[in-house]
C-alpha cells in the first residue's frame, strides 16, 4: 500500500478508533485502577491496596451471588438455545419461499428494536396476582389460589431473559443454516439418513459457529444484567450487576470497581473458551 493511501485508511478508521479508545479502553482502565483505591464515606483516595479484592472474595455473599448469576446464565442459555434453534430450523428448512423466510425472520427480529424495559413491564398484566394467567387458571378450576411464583420470582426473571434474548440465538443460527449447501442434505437423505440423523450429523455440526456466537451474546448479557433481575424479581433475587449497583449507591466506588474487574475476567474467560469454536470474521 502506498503512503498516501494508508493515510486515507487511517483517517477512515479514526472516528471508530477514537470512540473505542475514549469510551471503552480508558473507562475499563479506570475501573482497574480505581479497584485498588482506598475509600471512606465521602471520597475515594488514590492508593494501591488489595483490600477491595480481599473483602470481595472472602465474603460468602459474593460467592452466592456469582453462583446465582452463573445459574441464571446457564438456564437461560439452555432454553434460548433450544427455542432459538427450533425456530431458526423451521424458518430455514421448512419455509420454502424466500420472501416468506424474510418475513418470518423479520417478525422475530422486530422486538429487538423496541424497549427492553417496556417489554419487561408488559409481563405484569399477564403474570400478576390478578393477572391473565392466574384468572384463567382459576376460572378453569385448575387452581383455587393465585400462583405466587409467576411474578417477582426466579421464574419470571428467566422468563423475561428468554423473552428478551432468544433473538440473539435465532439470528446467528439462522445465518449458519441458510449457508448450508442443500446438496449435503440431499446426499444425507440419499445415503439413507433419517431426518433425525441428518439433523444431528449434518445440520447441528454445521451450525456450531452460529450456536457459539448466540451463546456468547446470551451468556455475556445475562452475566452483566441487573435491570431484568431488579424488575422481574421484585428485589428478591441477586445478581452481580445488582451487587455493583448497591456498592455504587453507597458511594463505595472502589468496591464496585473490584467487583467489576472480577466479573470482566469471568466474562472474558468464558468468551475466550467459546471463541475457540468459531472464527467470527469468517461468519459475516
Amino acid at each position, binding site marked *: 500500500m502506498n503512503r498516501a493511501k494508508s493515510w486515507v485508511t487511517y483517517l477512515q478508521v479514526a472516528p471508530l478508533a477514537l470512540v473505542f479508545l475514549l469510551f471503552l479502553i480508558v473507562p475499563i482502565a479506570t475501573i482497574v485502577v480505581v479497584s485498588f483505591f482506598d475509600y471512606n464515606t465521602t471520597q475515594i483516595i488514590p492508593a494501591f491496596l488489595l483490600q477491595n479484592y480481599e473483602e470481595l472474595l472472602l465474603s460468602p455473599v459474593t460467592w452466592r451471588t456469582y453462583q446465582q448469576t452463573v445459574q441464571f446464565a446457564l438456564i437461560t442459555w439452555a432454553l434460548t438455545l433450544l427455542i432459538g434453534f427450533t425456530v431458526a430450523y423451521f424458518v430455514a428448512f421448512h419455509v420454502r419461499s424466500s420472501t416468506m423466510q424474510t418475513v418470518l425472520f423479520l417478525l422475530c427480529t422486530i422486538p429487538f428494536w423496541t424497549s427492553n424495559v417496556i417489554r419487561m413491564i408488559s409481563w405484569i398484566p399477564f403474570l400478576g396476582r390478578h393477572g391473565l394467567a392466574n384468572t384463567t387458571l382459576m376460572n378453569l378450576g385448575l387452581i383455587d389460589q393465585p400462583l405466587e411464583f409467576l411474578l417477582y420470582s426466579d421464574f419470571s426473571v428467566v422468563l423475561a431473559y428468554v423473552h428478551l434474548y*432468544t433473538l440473539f440465538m435465532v439470528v446467528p443460527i439462522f445465518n449458519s443454516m441458510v449457508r448450508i449447501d442443500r446438496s449435503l442434505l440431499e446426499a444425507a437423505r440419499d445415503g439413507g439418513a433419517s431426518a433425525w440423523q441428518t439433523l444431528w450429523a449434518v445440520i447441528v455440526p454445521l451450525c456450531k459457529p452460529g450456536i457459539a456466537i448466540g451463546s456468547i451474546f446470551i451468556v455475556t448479557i445475562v452475566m452483566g444484567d441487573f435491570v431484568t433481575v431488579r424488575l422481574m424479581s421484585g428485589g428478591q433475587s441477586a445478581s452481580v450487576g445488582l451487587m455493583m449497583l448497591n456498592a455504587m449507591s453507597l458511594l463505595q466506588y472502589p468496591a464496585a470497581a473490584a467487583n467489576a474487574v472480577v466479573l470482566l475476567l469471568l466474562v472474558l474467560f468464558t468468551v475466550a473458551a467459546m471463541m475457540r469454536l468459531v472464527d467470527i470474521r469468517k461468519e459475516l
Partner: protein
Amino acid sequence: MPGRRGPAYWLLAGFFALFVLFLYGPTITILVLSFQGPKGGLTFPMNGVSLHWFGNLFEKQMVGDFAGSFKRSMVLGLGVMVVTVVASFSAGLAFRNRFRGSGVLFYLAIASLIVPSILISLGIGLLYRVLGWETAWYSSGFGAHLTWTLPFGLLIMFAVFNRFDRRYEEAARDLGATPWQTIRFVVLPILLPSLVGVGLFGFTLSYDEFARSLYTAGTFNTLPLEIYGMTTNVTTPVLYALGTVTTGVSFLAIGLAFGVFAILRRRQQRHGSDAGRAA
C-alpha cells in the same frame, strides 16, 4: 426438510406460532390496557375505554419529566444514528485494505459488544468522577451509546462489503472517476439500503438503551431511565400509556426504515438492474 409437508412441519409451525405469540403477546396486552378507563387498574378487566392515561402522560407533575426525557432521547438517538452511519461506513471502507492495527481494532469492536453494558456505564461514570467532569447525556451518554451501536454498524458493513462487487469501483476508476467521485456516485448509491439499516440500529438501540445510560446520563434523564424510575413508584396504567407511546416510536422508526428500503429498491430497479443486484 423440503418435501411433503408432514407432521414435523405442522409441529414446528405450531411451535413457531407460539413463539411469535410469546414475543408479541405481552406488548399487545399493555397496548390494550393503556386505553383503560380513568378508574381502571393495572390488570384486566378493562374498566371502560379512554385516552385518560395518555393525557396524564403530558401533565408534568404526574409522571416526572416525560416530555423532556422524550425530547432528549430523540435528539440523542438521532445524533448517535448519524455518527454510527458515518463512522461505520468509513471504517467499513478502510477495513477492505490491510492496515496496521486492523486486527486489534476488530477485536476492540467485538469487546465493545461483549463487555457487559454495566461495566461500560460504570467505567465512564468513574472516569468522569476521577477527572472531576460532569456527566451529561449529550457527552458521556453519547459516547456510551456509541460503544454499543458502532460494533453493530461495523459488523453490518463487513457483511455488506464482503458481498460488494469491487468491479463497479474499478469500472468507475477506469472511466476516470476520482476516489471521491467513485464513493459518491458508485459505492454510496449501491450501499444506501444497508446504510439505512445501520441507521435503524443506531437510532433504536440508542433510543432504548438503559444500562449504558445509567451512570453516564448525568442530571437529566433519558426516556428509558425515566420509565425505569416510574416502574418503582407509578402504579397506574399511565405506565402502559408510556409503553405504548415508546413502542409506537420504535415501530415508526422501523416502518420508516422499511419504507425507505422499498423506495430505494424501486429506484434502483428503474435506474438499471445491476445496482439493485449488487446491493
